[in-house]
């Protein structure tokens, strides 16, 4: 089944994103709380879309992004959307170098989330 991976250390944000996207486009939703979990889960479920927070304990989103891109499976081709804090231009540049495709600034618009998933479906 096609899947979407939601990565954020804040369970509130994970719950919000997954509730927003539930049953929208027939994707299975997976959640991870940090970069290490995200990389492991990505190699398992080969998501087509990854929402990736940047500031996380243990491994941040930028490093996770780089490692997902290096995987020799379907996950490497995922659309990776970074969730960034406003005004963090430096992070954006680093994330782009690490292979991020798109950026959503927090607080993000739920409609943008839905459109992204809808376009992919």
């Amino acid at each position, binding site marked *: 089944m096609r899947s979407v991976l939601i990565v954020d250390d*804040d369970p*509130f*944000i994970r719950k*919000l994103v997954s509730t927003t996207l539930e049953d929208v486009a027939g994707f299975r939703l997976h959640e991870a709380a940090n970069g290490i979990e995200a990389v492991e889960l990505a190699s398992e479920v080969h998501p087509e879309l990854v929402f990736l927070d940047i500031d996380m304990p243990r491994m941040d989103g930028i490093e996770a992004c780089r490692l997902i891109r290096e995987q020799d499976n379907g996950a490497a081709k995922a659309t990776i959307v970074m969730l960034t804090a406003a005004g963090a231009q430096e992070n954006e540049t680093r994330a782009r170098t690490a292979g991020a495709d798109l950026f959503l600034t*927090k*607080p*993000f*618009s*739920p*409609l943008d989330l839905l459109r992204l998933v809808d376009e992919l479906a």
Partner: protein
Amino acid sequence: MEDMPGKGTITDVSVLQERLATVERSAAEKEQQLERYAADLRETFKRERERRHELRRSYMATVRALCNAVEARDAYTGKHAERVAAYGMEIARVLDAPFCDDPEVEFGFLLHDVGKVAVPDSILWKPEPLTPEERTLMERHSLVGWEILREIDFLGEAKLVVRHHHERWDGAGYPDGLAGDAIPLAARVFSVADVLDALTTIRPYRPPSPLAVARDMIAESSGTQFDPEVVDAFMQIPLTRLDDIRREVG
């Protein structure tokens, strides 16, 4: 409080302050995120409402276009469909019928004769009484109308009005010969409104009757052609109100 090592206390306080700051920051972020959801929800609702109105307007325009196409052929009936729709909705309001605020049913009133597009001019405009064969062809218009509209979902109940607008309370009508409550209420209401307008407008074969005369004629057919309850409701409408409706539509 008992004595504690001073340094330890200061460290504890600064750690707690730092944690508090983190919690507060996180709470503020959640709040902003929820506000964003609320804003999107509001915008989505507004857009959805506009679309609903737009859709309603295009439904109405579509129904009117179809209705005009039917009436364009028949110089005598003029705004017959619109008058009948207005009379019908007035009766529905007095009856307190479940559909009295339902635009679908009004659409059905407006489109009742759409099947006449399949009736040849020679029959539609014939001033003399129709032969049995011609009558059969003429009477097909209820079923033809229903067939024409069958696939249009938004017309819902309206299609039943189109199909059954010539049924009679005593079962002697067409196309299905339904009797009594088996005839949809909207169609029972419609037939009173239809006859009222037919009697009060000029036809090739007779002059128009005054409203009061037409009303008495309808009362005489209560229980045979018409549902007695619908006729009772109709009789409660003051003649002046019926006259106003006729003038308003034109």
